């Protein structure tokens, strides 16, 4: 076992192989990426609502600036926030503790994965700042736009750096997921059977499985695209193109091939982002409602089902691309299948809260927010999955609303819930301020709904996404400007709420109340008094909450032996 021993030089602290340190490092990386992504989105929202406005530092926002910000916003948020923080961040911080392991299975590999991720982040920042501009083709990087350097500003070096960054990220994610899988399968404490795992661990486990299978395919696609860009191959570039007045010397490639490879990765990626949040939500709702998860087994099976189905539905991103109509219908039906395990989960969450003795701590607030946002964002899924409706709504703000609610906002709310809940582990045993936490929650949920609910209406009105400015020649779009302005104002509320969070975070690191041993009276092994106990033995299921018989406590921790019972 690798217990970290003490030559604590700066180097060994920074390049630590200790999973908790690595988890914190991921957290900070994600926080930086999240703040950057948020600021980029603020510029985008302001520009679209008031296009004439000149912004400090940026001056006039040009179309290429807007599109570059859009690309980097999407990439940072998907890869470096939604993917990284719940999985690699809180996973590293809490997974070993929750399963009673002393460390991750491969600590050095873990550190390598983190530093690759960090360098990938630096390359992505370089892509944003490089001369010639950042890539403008969105986080999906559809060729030929992304394959031909002439197709727009930022499509040269910027796109190369983007692809390299993502390539490094793919390798790092695969390494990280190997570590997660082996740790979960091989490092559990005695008695921690798979059916006794906290649901958070199931979330991480299935998400790691998806990472393992999906990221390699994106890497393959990135390699093909890079060789199209630099070595004259024609994987994605068809013949007979003239871009920017010049003939393109490629022939026979298929732009749709990229989309297939990308979305074969991309759809599982969405679930990688949300599965840890789902597990966490179950975990927190049970803990704060003081009730066991009703039908734990169904939750495990629905997690596995969602993971498995995630690989079969990528075609629903391509309904309007000229896919065979029969393939379209098949993908549509498979997509609807995802709704079944998802609704099992939703019902289970509501059932957990029903009849609970709910304690309204901040982690609970964000978990309830998660459920609400998940429902709202999720219910438009079956709508978009119908090709007949998607031919109108595809690539409009309706889709933007859908994925920002279900993946973006729900995912972020999951991260916040985890931060408030596990803050004693993130810091040196402190708690975050509850009052600020509540303010953060209420402003956030109002801001989130205020921003993303009206986007459905923009979409239904036919506003296409990724427009740097509403075109003045198109009447029906100009009519939507008041709605755009309303959304921008709501987004400012959402951003303001995050300032409260950041203040709270730093304040609590320095001044937060002492958390004590088990501040939430939770059952998990991570809250046990000493993590150095040699003879850890897990005796029970993850969620043993029950009605207290007078004066007794109402829960039992997983490692509590039978003798201790009342």
């Amino acid at each position: 076992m690798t217990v970290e021993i003490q030559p604590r030089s700066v180097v060994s602290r920074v390049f630590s192989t200790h999973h908790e340190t690595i988890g914190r490092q991921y957290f900070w990386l994600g926080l930086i990426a999240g703040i950057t992504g948020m600021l980029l989105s603020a510029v985008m929202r302001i520009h679209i609502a008031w296009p004439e406005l000149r912004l400090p530092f940026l001056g006039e926002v040009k179309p290429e600036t807007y599109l570059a910000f859009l690309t980097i916003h999407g990439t940072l948020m998907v890869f470096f926030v939604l993917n990284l923080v719940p999985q690699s961040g809180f996973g590293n911080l809490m997974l070993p503790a929750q399963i009673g392991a002393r460390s991750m299975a491969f600590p050095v590999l873990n550190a390598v994965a983190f530093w690759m991720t960090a360098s990938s982040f630096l390359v992505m920042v370089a892509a944003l700042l490089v001369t010639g501009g950042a890539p403008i083709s969105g986080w999906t990087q559809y060729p030929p736009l992304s394959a031909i350097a002439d197709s727009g500003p930022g499509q040269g070096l910027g796109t190369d750096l983007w692809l390299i960054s993502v390539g490094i990220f793919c390798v790092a994610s695969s390494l990280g997921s190997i570590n997660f899988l082996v740790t979960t399968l091989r490092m559990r404490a005695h008695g921690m059977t798979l059916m006794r795992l906290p649901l958070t661990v199931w979330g991480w486990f299935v998400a790691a499985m998806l990472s393992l299978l999906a990221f390699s395919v994106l890497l393959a696609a990135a390699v093909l695209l890079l060789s199209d860009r630099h070595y004259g191959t024609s994987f994605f570039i068809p013949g007979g193109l003239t871009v920017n007045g010049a003939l393109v010397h490629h022939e026979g490639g298929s732009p749709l091939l990229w989309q297939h490879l990308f979305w074969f990765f991309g759809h599982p990626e969405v679930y990688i982002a949300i599965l840890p949040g789902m597990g966490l939500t179950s975990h927190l709702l049970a803990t704060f409602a003081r009730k066991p998860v009703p039908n734990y087994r169904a939750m495990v099976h629905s997690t596995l089902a969602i993971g498995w189905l995630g690989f079969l539905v990528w075609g629903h991103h391509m309904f309007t691309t000229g896919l065979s109509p029969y393939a379209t219908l098949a993908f549509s039906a498979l997509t609807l299948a995802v709704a079944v395990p998802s609704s099992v989960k939703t019902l289970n969450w509501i059932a957990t809260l029903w009849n609970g003795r709910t304690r309204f701590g901040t982690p609970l607030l964000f978990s309830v927010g998660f459920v609400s946002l998940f429902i709202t964002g999720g219910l438009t899924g079956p709508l978009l999955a119908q090709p007949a409706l998607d031919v109108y709504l595809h690539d409009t703000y309706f889709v933007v609303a859908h994925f920002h609610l279900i993946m973006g906002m729900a995912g972020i709310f999951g991260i916040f819930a985890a931060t408030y809940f596990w803050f004693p582990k993130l810091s040196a045993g402190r708690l975050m301020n509850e009052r600020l936490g509540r303010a953060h929650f209420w402003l956030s949920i109002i801001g989130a709904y205020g921003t993303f609910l009206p986007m459905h209406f923009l979409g239904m009105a036919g506003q296409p996404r990724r427009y740097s400015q509403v075109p003045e020649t198109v009447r029906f779009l100009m009519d939507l400007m008041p709605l755009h302005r309303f959304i921008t104002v709501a987004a400012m509320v959402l951003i303001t709420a995050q300032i409260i969070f950041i203040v709270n975070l730093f304040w609590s690191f320095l001044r937060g109340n002492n958390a004590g041993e088990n501040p939430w009276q939770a059952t998990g092994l991570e809250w046990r008094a000493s993590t150095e106990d040699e003879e850890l033995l897990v005796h029970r299921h993850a969620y043993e909450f029950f009605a207290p018989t007078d004066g007794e406590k109402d829960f039992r921790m997983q490692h509590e032996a039978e003798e201790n019972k009342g």
Partner: protein
Amino acid sequence: MPKPIPSPAQADPQTATGGVPRPPGSPPSGSDWEKRPAGKPAPRHRLRRYRLGVGFGVVTIYMLFLGLASAFIIRQSGYRSDDPQNPYVMDWQHIDLPSILYLNTILLAVSSITVELARRQVFLEPDATKEWLGMGRPIARRTLPWMGITILLGLGFLGGQAMAWQELYARGAFFASNPSSSFFFLLTGLHALHLFGGLLALAWAVLTGLVHSRFERRQIAIDVSAWFWHAMGVLWLALFLLLRFGQ
């Protein structure tokens, strides 16, 4: 694809309380987990952990090649579209494989046998016990030559692949000449890269076998590098069949 060896818990999920929370107070159910003294790892715990890690690593590498292989198949239906009179002419030119690839395949197959011979040696009782106790190194003596031969065969394979590339260059088929040659160089090149990783692993295993003081470490190094080598051999076989019969 190598399947993870099921852990005791996976094999028998019913042994614990399962989905229904057990009433607090019922005695612990009689699973292996509970009987084994706490704090004591299962035998070969570390070996199985590393094997599983390599197994998952191989899965992710296979997915990389699966992505490329599906692109290989789909791309064959690409057509030239710059000639409006004749728009549907396929641009894929069949590529005849250099015959040295057959020899390379045999080399790699033989190397898999030699590495397996080495791998089997490290678990042979009673020598393993002897070496574990520090009484001489009978196993190291017998495995290392086989490992050396494997490395040589692996180098031979890489040299053979380089000759195959030379032959294609001589025919005028370069990376960008045609999608078929692009894929040929890409698939064989990436495979060679991974196989080179396998060579490094074998070299590391030899080095560990020579210098590492703990027998368990020496066992693990040889075992997992051998498994990785097998996996890369199987990958080559699949790629070879794909290139030979898949176009």
